[in-house]
Structures are given as structure tokens and as C-alpha cells.
């Protein structure tokens, strides 16, 4: 493409799209009102505890949980980045999201019900709470908490990148005036922060309804209407295959590895499989996934959701293919700075192919889609901070009301940090840190999931395994250099040692993590080193909300302010701390 043509296109797409923008603003205001009203939803006497503010009173049934988890896991960034990856480099980088979000559900089916039950019995709000109760080990608990907290930050920042992409295509955010440039994003986030602060987890639960209905509507309309406009699916796949082949030829000519793919070739099988597996195992280690799961009202709600959440995976697959529809449609995702930016491909496709008002609906779907996960993530990160750092290390005698207060303030701080992150640093940094975050989260899988099933693993062995996985994963990811920009943290694939195949770094680090944990556990157990005190009993992992003994415990629990432990009549249960 000649530079001149680029300028023309940028000028054409750069103007403010008034109708689309109006629709976007109206829908945005609608959910803002809904967010503030949400505090009345399934109303509690007081929001001044983490159970109420941070977990919605653990009261959400199957459908609310479905919307909430769907709104939480399938983020705006996913909706922007997955088709962008399909558009830019094809199936390995983009379509792995489909097997990832399929195998995700059998995996969480197996362990999430146990986590729900033990958390219900002991009032755990975070996974680090569980680890603390299982081993009575503050260090291991802190390791889990810090990993979750740090990995969530760039994820929140990426939600802003999603909103920015929409605003940019709608024509906002141009110009050199820094105030005018970032004001829309700033306002959107200030509103989000305000209603999250006042309504807690109930806000995203209510907004998730609007978000998901819009997303389903937009994608179904697009997938039915667009293929006919660009010559049908044969033409779409043909155009994609041509582009990927051309990409690879150009890469080989430039002396680089061919990284584009139409259908994964034999060299990419391991990459595709490990990306899917690693991402699936890491996703439910993130604090925001746990928060949404624990807010459900029964262990069976979680399991029913494992069977019905794949509806979102289907939509995600369709959305991924829209990246290729854009190839066939000849979409040119060019930013306001005149540079090509694949992240803009989906908003640009909608602006090019649909009437302005429908493009506005699509923009709103993405922008509102960013608010739900951003709210849940900030709540989850804040809960982790107040429970596992503030109460555990800074102020041991904090009351539930003080915990909730710290959480609320922290949720504001976390969002402010994300905003600064996006406004001052290169967007690519947020993306890189998020990739790194996935690698980190997977390293907490043994500590959390293995411990749900067995106490054979030794707490120190788990800690060393975690540390080794973190260090290895970070170093390997640092060494991935982007061939175009020459910068570090250029991706999440590296050669698997001893196999000479590319694979997801998180999985390699996980294997090192587990091997170390097993070997050291064998040694430490043989040496009879103390493995801490377990406050849980086997019954805890099966308890359901309507169990009569659980009801009795809950009644008792409500009479004291202890965060952990309940004095009850179940033999073997640890006394209140």
C-alpha cells in the first residue's frame, strides 16, 4: 500500500461517526443507571462485608451466574483480540480460543464444586483464603494472593484497550490535546469506578445481562448477514488461505520464521494444544473467575453452568471467524495515527459494513463488554488485597466492615492504576503483561487444585515449585523477541526443552513446577517436616447450601466476626481460630 492511500483511508475513517456515537452513549448511560440501581438487586441488609459487597451475598442462581461468568470470562479484549489475531496471523494464534474454552468446562466441573463447598463452609472469599486454611501457611497463601493480584492488573488495563479501540473507530480520541484525547475513556472509567464502589458485585451482575444480550445479538446478525455480502464462506476461507500463504512467503523472503497459519501445520500441533490446555487451566486460577464462581448459590449451580457456558464458546468461535470475514471484505484497520492496527479490525468491519446505528450497537456491546470484566476483576483484586494482604499482614483484627471498606477503596485504586497504565505506557506493554499473567496464573494451579483433592503435597514443596515455575516462565517469556519490533516479551510460545517443538511457556513451566513439587514432597514427607494444620475436613468439600448442618453452621457463623473457622459439632473439624 502506498503511503498516500494510507492517508486517504485514515482521513475517511477518522471522522466522528455521529449516529454510532449517539447510540453508544445512550446505551452506555443506560447501563450506568443500571449499575447504580444494582445495589437494590437481591437486596441485603448491609453491603458492609466482603460476602455482600464482594460476592453478592453468595446468592446468584443458575442464570445470573451464567450471565455473570459469561460476561466475566469472555471479555471485551477477547472480542477485540481473538478476531484481530485471526486477521493478522491466522488459526494458531486465534482459533485456539475455541478448544481452550471447550476443555475449560470439564476441567472446572471437576474441581470448582469442591472449591465452592469448602469456601461456603469456611467463608473463604479468595483462593488464597483456602490455601491459608488448608495448610495454615501465610507464605504460601501470600504467594497465591500476590500472583493473582499482579496478573489481574494488566488484564483490567486490557479492558480499557478494548474501549479505546471502539472509541478510536467511532472517531473519538484523536487530536494532540491530551485532555480531549483521553477524556471519554476517563469518564467511562470514572462512572464504572463509582457504581462498582457503591453496588459491589451486584453491579456487573446486572450489567452483564445487557452486555451479553447485545453481544449475542450483534454477532448473530453479523454472522448471518456478512458472509453473503463478501461472497459466502468459500470466498472467506479462500481469502484467508491466500493471505496466510502470502504472509508466510513474505516472512520467508525476509528471513523470518513463517508464523501465519490457515489450518495448523504439523509444526504447530503442540503449540495449538498447549495454548488451549494452558489457558484453560490458568483461567479459573484468576481471582475474577473465582469471585464469579463463588458468588453462585450452590455447588450445583457451578456444575450446571459448566454445561451451559459453552454457548459463549460457540459465539467466540463465530467471532473469531469474523476476523477472516474482514480479510474477505478488505477491511483496513487503520488507527487515528494513520498506522495499521489489527486490534481495530472488528470495530472497523462493523463501521464499514453496517448502517451507522447498528455499528453503534456493536460498539456499545464491546464497550459495555469491557465494563463487566473490569468491574469483577477490580473487585476480585481488591478482595484478594484486603483479605490476604491487609488482614493477614497489616491489620489482623480487621472487622468485616473494615475489610469491605479496604476492598472498596482498593477497587478504586486498582482501576486508577489500570487507567494510568494504559494512558502512559505503550498498549503493547499491557498485552505483554497479560500474556505473562497467564503464565504466572497457571503456576498457582498445583497449590490450589491439587490441594482441593489431597494433602499429600507438602506446603514448602508447592511453594518451591511455584517459585520455579514463575522464574522459568518469566525468563522464557522475556527471551521471546518480537521479530518485527525487536522487543522482549514478544509472545508466549517457546521451544519445549527436549522436544524441539514450539509450545506454550506456561505448560513447560507448569511441568517443572509439578515435578519439583512431587520430588520435594517425597523428601519432606520422608523427613517428617510439618505440613501445617488443616482446618478443613473431608465433609467440607461436598457440603451443599441446603445441607441442614451447613444451615446450622451458617447461623452460628453469623454470630461472630471470625473470618476463619466455625465452632460446630462435626467431628474432626478444627476449632475457630
Amino acid at each position, binding site marked *: 500500500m502506498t503511503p498516500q492511500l494510507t492517508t486517504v483511508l485514515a482521513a475517511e475513517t477518522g471522522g466522528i461517526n455521529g449516529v454510532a456515537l449517539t447510540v453508544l452513549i445512550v446505551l452506555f448511560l443506560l447501563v450506568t443507571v443500571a449499575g447504580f440501581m444494582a445495589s437494590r438487586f437481591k437486596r441485603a441488609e448491609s453491603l458492609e462485608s466482603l460476602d455482600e459487597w464482594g460476592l453478592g451475598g453468595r446468592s446468584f442462581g443458575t442464570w445470573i451466574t451464567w450471565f455473570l461468568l459469561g460476561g466475566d470470562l469472555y471479555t471485551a479484549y477477547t472480542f477485540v483480540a481473538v478476531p484481530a489475531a485471526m486477521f493478522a496471523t491466522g*488459526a494458531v494464534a486465534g*482459533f485456539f480460543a*475455541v*478448544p481452550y474454552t*471447550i*476443555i475449560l*468446562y*470439564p*476441567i472446572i*466441573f*471437576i474441581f470448582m464444586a469442591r472449591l465452592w463447598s469448602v469456601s461456603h463452609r469456611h467463608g473463604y472469599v479468595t483462593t488464597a483464603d483456602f490455601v491459608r486454611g488448608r495448610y495454615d501457611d501465610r507464605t504460601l497463601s501470600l504467594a497465591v494472593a500476590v500472583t493473582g493480584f499482579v496478573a489481574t492488573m494488566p488484564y483490567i488495563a486490557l479492558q480499557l484497550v478494548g474501549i479505546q479501540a471502539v472509541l478510536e473507530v467511532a472517531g473519538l480520541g484523536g487530536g494532540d490535546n491530551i485532555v480531549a484525547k483521553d477524556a471519554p475513556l476517563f469518564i467511562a472509567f470514572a462512572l464504572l469506578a463509582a457504581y462498582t464502589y457503591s453496588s459491589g458485585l451486584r453491579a456487573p451482575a446486572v450489567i452483564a445481562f445487557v452486555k451479553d444480550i447485545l453481544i449475542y445479538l450483534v454477532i448473530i446478525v453479523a454472522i448471518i448477514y456478512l458472509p453473503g455480502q463478501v461472497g*459466502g*464462506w*468459500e470466498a*472467506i*476461507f479462500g481469502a484467508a488461505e491466500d493471505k496466510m500463504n502470502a504472509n508466510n512467503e513474505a516472512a520467508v523472503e525476509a528471513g523470518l520464521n513463517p508464523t501465519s497459519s*490457515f*489450518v*495448523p*501445520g*504439523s509444526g504447530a*500441533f*503442540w503449540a*495449538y*494444544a498447549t495454548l*488451549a*490446555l494452558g489457558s484453560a487451566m490458568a483461567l479459573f486460577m484468576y481471582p475474577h473467575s473465582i469471585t464469579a464462581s463463588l458468588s453462585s448459590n450452590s455447588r*450445583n449451580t457451578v*456444575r*450446571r453452568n*459448566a*454445561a*451451559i457456558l*459453552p*454457548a459463549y*464458546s*460457540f459465539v467466540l*468461535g463465530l467471532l473469531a*471467524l469474523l476476523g477472516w470475514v474482514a480479510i474477505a471484505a478488505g477491511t483496513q484497520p487503520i488507527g487515528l495515527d494513520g498506522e495499521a492496527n489489527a486490534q481495530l479490525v472488528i470495530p472497523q468491519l462493523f463501521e464499514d459494513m453496517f448502517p451507522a446505528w447498528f455499528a453503534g450497537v456493536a460498539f456499545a456491546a464491546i464497550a459495555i463488554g469491557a465494563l463487566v470484566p473490569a468491574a469483577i476483576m477490580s473487585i476480585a483484586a481488591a478482595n484478594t488485597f484486603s483479605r490476604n494482604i491487609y488482614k493477614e499482614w497489616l491489620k489482623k483484627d480487621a472487622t468485616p466492615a473494615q475489610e469491605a471498606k479496604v476492598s472498596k477503596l482498593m477497587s478504586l485504586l486498582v482501576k486508577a492504576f489500570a487507567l494510568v497504565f494504559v494512558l502512559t505506557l505503550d498498549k503493547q506493554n499491557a498485552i505483554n503483561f497479560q500474556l505473562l499473567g497467564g503464565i504466572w496464573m497457571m503456576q498457582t494451579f498445583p497449590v490450589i487444585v491439587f490441594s482441593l483433592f489431597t494433602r499429600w503435597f507438602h506446603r514448602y514443596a508447592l511453594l518451591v515449585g511455584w517459585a520455579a515455575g514463575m522464574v522459568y516462565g518469566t525468563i522464557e517469556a522475556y527471551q521471546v523477541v518480537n521479530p518485527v519490533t525487536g522487543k522482549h516479551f514478544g509472545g508466549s510460545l517457546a521451544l519445549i526443552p527436549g522436544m524441539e517443538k514450539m509450545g506454550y511457556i506456561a505448560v513447560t513451566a507448569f511441568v517443572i513446577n509439578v515435578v519439583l513439587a512431587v520430588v520435594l514432597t517425597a523428601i519432606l514427607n520422608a523427613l517428617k517436616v510439618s505440613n501445617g494444620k488443616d482446618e478443613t*475436613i*473431608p*465433609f467440607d468439600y*461436598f*457440603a*451443599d447450601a*441446603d*445441607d*441442614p*448442618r451447613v444451615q446450622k453452621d451458617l447461623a452460628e457463623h453469623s454470630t461472630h466476626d471470625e473470618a476463619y473457622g466455625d465452632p460446630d*459439632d*462435626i*467431628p*474432626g473439624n478444627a476449632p475457630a481460630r
Partner: protein
Amino acid sequence: MRKMALAGVLLVIPVVVLLWVPHYAKVEPKLFGFPFFFWYQFLWVFICSALTWTAYKLTLSARGKTTHKVGEDR
């Protein structure tokens, strides 16, 4: 216990199938213009959902809802 084992098997099936990439990373046979690679994975969204639902029903019938007696740990 047999029902729980069966539920476990149902849950492992989609994981194994989808991680075994070589058997579906191909273009033919096409369906409505979709290469095999794509429609096959879409198909597994539904199969996996059905398997998970079946596993859920199995775990319910295996344990009943609140069958635990006081002092019984499992």
C-alpha cells in the same frame, strides 16, 4: 462409585480429543464451505456441553442431594 467413574470418563473425553490436534488439523471434508478443522471444533462445543450435562446428572444421582449423615465423611 461406578457412576462417578463414568462421569469422570465423560469429562476426560473432550479434553483428550481436542488436545489431539493432528486428527482434525485438515481442510477436507468441507461442510457448507467450512474446512473440517473449523466445523469439527464447533461440533465439539455441543458434544462437550452434552457430556458435561450427562456427567452432572450422573453425579447427582450417584450422591443424592443431601444424603450425608452426621459424622459421615467423604
